[in-house]
């Protein structure tokens, strides 16, 4: 279990978190659902150690490795697809193993033929698939996805979601998934936190089961 305990965070005069508690179950996909700008990314960044807490503490992340699928692909555009994967894996795996792992994951996202392409030559969807492959190829314990399908059309989004599901089945890890898209939230998550207000509050905790319509109505009514 990963926990934020009595967390407090201010940005100048803006109190984002005050005595805030939340927990994420290991090897499950937990969704942070809520309007833009409410502080979902901040929570994820606190867990990942990018943003320090003013008060309180993060439990259960000692010695954890993180990977992250950002809203944008965040790839090095002067490197090829392969080199971008290699860049994050270099300190983790030996040469031979690295080649194998990169090939495996590029295969999974169906980009094997493009491995020597420069990032500039890829479409937005392809670039985001590289970012997804990078996140799964890295031996992280915790994977953060911050609105990774934002701006994609319906078809591309569905492709990415099923791709994600397949990859997660193969290599299960703790996932914090940020979105304000109802369909995405229900499709991917085991559990959904609905968040609102400033300082941030948890409005509801939803366990995703087969009652999709009911959950959908609940999320839409927020």
């Amino acid at each position, binding site marked *: 279990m990963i926990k934020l305990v009595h967390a407090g965070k201010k940005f100048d005069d803006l109190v984002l978190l005050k005595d805030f508690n939340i927990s994420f179950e290991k090897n499950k996909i937990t969704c942070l659902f809520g309007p833009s700008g409410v502080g979902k990314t901040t929570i994820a960044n606190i867990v990942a*150690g990018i943003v320090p807490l003013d008060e309180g503490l993060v439990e259960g992340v000692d010695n954890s490795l993180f990977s992250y699928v950002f809203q944008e692909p965040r790839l090095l555009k002067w490197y090829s697809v392969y080199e971008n994967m290699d860049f994050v894996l270099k*300190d983790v795996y030996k040469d031979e193993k690295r080649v194998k792992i990169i090939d495996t994951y590029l295969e999974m996202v169906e980009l094997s033929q493009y491995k020597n392409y420069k990032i500039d030559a890829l479409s937005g969807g392809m670039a985001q698939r590289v970012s997804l492959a990078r996140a799964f190829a890295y031996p992280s314990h915790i994977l953060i996805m911050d609105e990774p399908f934002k701006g994609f059309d319906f078809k591309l989004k569905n492709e990415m979601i099923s791709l994600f599901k397949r990859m997660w089945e193969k290599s299960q890890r703790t996932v914090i998934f940020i979105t304000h898209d109802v369909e995405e939230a229900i499709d991917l998550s085991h559990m959904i936190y609905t968040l609102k207000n400033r300082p941030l509050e948890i409005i509801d905790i939803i366990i995703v089961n087969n009652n999709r319509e009911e959950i959908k109505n609940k999320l839409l009514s927020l």
Partner: protein
Amino acid sequence: MMNSIMRNKGKLLIILFWILAWEIGSLIIDQEIYLPSPHAAFSALINLLTSKETYITIFYSTYRTLAGFFLSCLLGIMLGIVCGIRKPLYDLFNPLIIIMRTVPVMSIIIIAIMWFKDNNVPIFVAFLMCFPIIWTNTVTGIRSTDVKLLEMCQVYKIKKLRVIKSVYLYSSLPYIQAGMISALGIGWKVTSAAEVLSLPKYSIGRFLYDSKVYLEIPDLFAWTIIIISLSFLFEGLLKFIFRSGDQHD
């Protein structure tokens, strides 16, 4: 193909126009000491190009310019990287760089003459004049690095040295290259200036000085043409290296 021939033709015509303007100017003034004719300058140039000493001189002056230039690149880029990343170091070095940028070249040359052997004065001066340009451009380049990429590196726990090599350096490369090109041009100018005052045995500056002393003004023009040509040649070479480097990546 056709297009590039037309463009070159246009360029040639422009050059011919200015040479003609020079010719007319020299005809009006009609005093070789003030403004020799293009014909006099070019025949002095051809005369120079037949002498072995000229090539030795060109070799030594080129060596000095490039030595100063490479030294400033090496130190300017290295120091620029660390100052670009670490703000306190930037604050520490910035006043020094500002002073280097504003001190008159002549003061530096005269001080350098007191400190060094005549041969090394131009190298030191070229270094001192080029260094701030390279440093400033490198710092600007490093600071232009996308914070989002750095955040990505932080998440994936990439080692600092690799972040510098793969992220900072590539991001700032266009700035560093632009800095190197302008520094090289300035390098040629200040090296000749320093040579005129320090008078190393084989140096273009010494010949510039001699032509003033002996009033051989066409020679002065001929040597100037040589410096300009060398400057263009090496700038072209540098740009060629950068371009082929880009294609290689």
